[in-house]
């Protein structure tokens, strides 16, 4: 069995550093397997979040060789193992310990957003009629597993630290899933423009590139929301805006 070195971020808010661990690796292993093996054999107290180990729960987000990834879906055979594999926590959130960050801000953001508000049911049994083609695009947004990797790479949050003024890609996707939901009646455009800070997004598509669910965050969620905001509040310059955003 081959060996590989994993350079893992250890420590807490008071201080942290990379520590190298050598461990055995075998066919088919993912980064999370290696982290678990190190945890079981060499570092029992290492902190790592995980649940499903199948890319469905979005718990094990980290930065592997500098790339935002789900550790459970990052195969070792896609990484150069002749040099140490670095594993770090998401950098856009405060460190709790080792690979675990404080992502509670995300949960608070969602709580503040206007919830789903359906129109009265279409049928007497309290149900609605919706065409599959009308919900296809909303179902894309609802694939989100809340791994927060899109938040992690968004420069508005990561570099500019504008957590108080900007809700980040995850919650634009959430807003889009509500705004485009065929039976929702709420209007969230004013919040999107003001407190949610959608204007800060300059469509660099970093979020789309890292989404493990392959949600086309920028094109399908953020840009249409921006257009709706423009339609609602800046109608006269709508044409101009479209020219610039092309």
């Amino acid at each position, binding site marked *: 069995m081959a060996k590989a070195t994993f350079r893992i971020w250890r420590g807490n808010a008071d201080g942290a550093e990379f520590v190298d661990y050598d461990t055995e690796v075998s066919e088919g292993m993912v980064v999370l397997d290696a982290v678990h093996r190190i945890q079981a054999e060499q570092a029992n107290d290492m902190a790592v979040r995980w*649940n499903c180990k199948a890319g*469905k729960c979005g718990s094990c987000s980290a930065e592997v060789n500098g790339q935002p990834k789900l550790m459970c879906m990052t195969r070792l055979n896609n990484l150069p193992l002749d040099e140490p594999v670095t594993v770090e926590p998401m950098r856009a959130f405060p460190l709790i310990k080792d690979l675990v960050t404080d992502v509670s801000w995300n949960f608070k953001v969602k709580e503040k957003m206007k919830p789903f508000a359906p129109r009265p049911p279409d049928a007497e049994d309290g149900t609605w009629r919706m065409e599959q083609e009308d919900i296809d695009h909303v179902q894309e947004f609802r694939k989100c597993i809340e791994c927060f990797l899109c938040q992690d790479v968004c420069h508005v949050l990561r570099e500019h630290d504008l957590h108080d003024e900007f809700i980040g890609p995850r919650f634009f996707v959430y807003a889009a899933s509500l705004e485009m939901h065929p039976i929702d009646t709420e209007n969230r455009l004013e919040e999107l423009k003001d407190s949610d800070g959608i204007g800060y997004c300059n469509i660099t598509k970093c979020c789309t590139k890292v989404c493990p669910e392959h949600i086309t965050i920028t094109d399908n969620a953020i840009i249409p929301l921006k257009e709706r905001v423009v339609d609602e509040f800046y109608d006269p310059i709508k044409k101009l805006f479209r020219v610039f955003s092309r």
Partner: protein
Amino acid sequence: MSSYETHEYDVLIIGAGGAGLRAAIEAAVGDLKVGLVCKSLLGKAHTVMAEGGVAAALANVDERDSWRVHFADTMRGGQYLSNARMAELHAQESPDRVRELEAWGALFDRTQEGGILQRNFGGHQYPRLAHVGDRTGLEMIRALQDHGIHQGIEVHMENTVVSLLKTGDRVSGAFGYEREKGRFKIFAAKAVVLATGGVGKAYKITSNSWEYTGDGHALAYHAGAELIDMEFVQFHPTGMVWPPSVRGILVTEGVRGEGGILTNSEGRRFMFDDIPELYVTQTADNPEEGWLYTQGDREARRPPELLTRDHVARCIVREVQEGRGSPHGGVFLDIAWIKEKISNAPEHIRRKLPSMYHQFKELADIDITQEPMEVGPTTHYIMGGIRVDADSQMTAVPGLFAAGECAAGLHGANRLGGNSLSDLLVFGKRAGEYAAQFAMENEAVSLDESEVDTIATHTLKPFENPPEDANGDKVGPYDIQARLQDKMQELVGIARTQGSLTQALEEIQNLREKAEIVHAIGNREYNSGWHTALDLDCLLTVSEAIALAALERRASIGAHSRDDHPEKEEPGAGKYNTIIKKADDGAMGIRREPVDELRSDLQEIIDEIG
């Protein structure tokens, strides 16, 4: 009590999967103060992994479906050991519980008429599972979560309960720690709902994550509640078998529902070779009929791949044991073959089974639209669990309720796919409702401070223990956990004997001694080793319960197979449930109770539908 951070609630819910969230939402309907404690972040519990769908007799796709057929299917699937009242309530109420999710924002796949689409699944006579591709659980937990966060529920994420608190006979709260700093917390409550899920982590090959250590089962057992039918552990027939690191990860039954077939190394569809008597009349006798069934032909009968999970798992084990397995010790599950039947097969498969496509592509380098998967059984679900009143979900301990996987009664000897998502909605709601009622009708009781101190001291003991035992063996938490998992897999797995179970009980006892002196390194801050050490008690308790109940049931029925007792019923024993309760001396006691006779109107349904 001043030394511990204390939170006071009318209703405390432990666990935030589907059952816990649904219970919390219901309990919060009035003005009650509701607390929700969960081991992970909100929305990460195992409900999120459920793939195939939620069973509800909406009759949107086949109008012949009704709660009566769903009831009969559930009872048959459970080998008539289920609590009939629970099966009745479940079948009657799940359609409303599913519709309600739509009012909270869930978006199920649609029929041509714009209603909720339903698909076929093992053991269900008609297409009954409302679904969203193969990510139904994600849709459900997100709908519940996004609705729940606006109901005034206080959520304690990444908090673990280590003990329930009792005052006299009544439950009075819970004691636990938060992961971040390892600080202790007291949750005082008039009523407590356990919704902690399963026990899969007791086994080596499992679809369950680190969380599923039988916490609710163990908490309830130690508080004096009864556990019922713990021998019935569902080994899902199709888990991934390769590569080794993903062994056990679930492959949804939806693959077979969409036409996927099981074959052995000789290319034979071995499921046609063994069709149980209870299902002969409902099962296709040729491949073409099976295919037509999966495509919605109402006159066709289901293919044998969609027989109940216990049976399919056993057939797979037989093929492997008799040398007809796949290269990595499973069998083949082939959905790619449907290209013989439909023109746009790859696109169709990717649309119907997107996360399966993704999972195999990313983790095994296999394109399921082009080649077969390798699959084998994986520990998935426990039918047994905390014994509850069918209507109220209250346990034998006043004020203590349970719902979802940790509770028992609905599924009998074997659970049908899709019946767990409906279970947690129906009985999560009921548990929340009756817990709220209990809280309104009863005053708060004061907590016993000395009891809390004792638990707190015990919780910190792993830090005091030396790293090795008297023989120089390591007593790290992961070592003990791994040894338990190996033994449970080997001795209390799909095939059991008196010898294997007796040996298992001895091994569990040895490991319990080790767990008493388990050693944790580091400090209390987000220390996975310490958490694993604390989970050991729960794992050992449920492992002992499973082995003891399996030893008691000297027959092979549903998910429980005894190689030394292959017959379905023990001569003269009749139909019974196994009941486990902590004896006065602290030992685990077991007894049998006959299954209640069916109410005549329910018996009529079964006589009529079969």
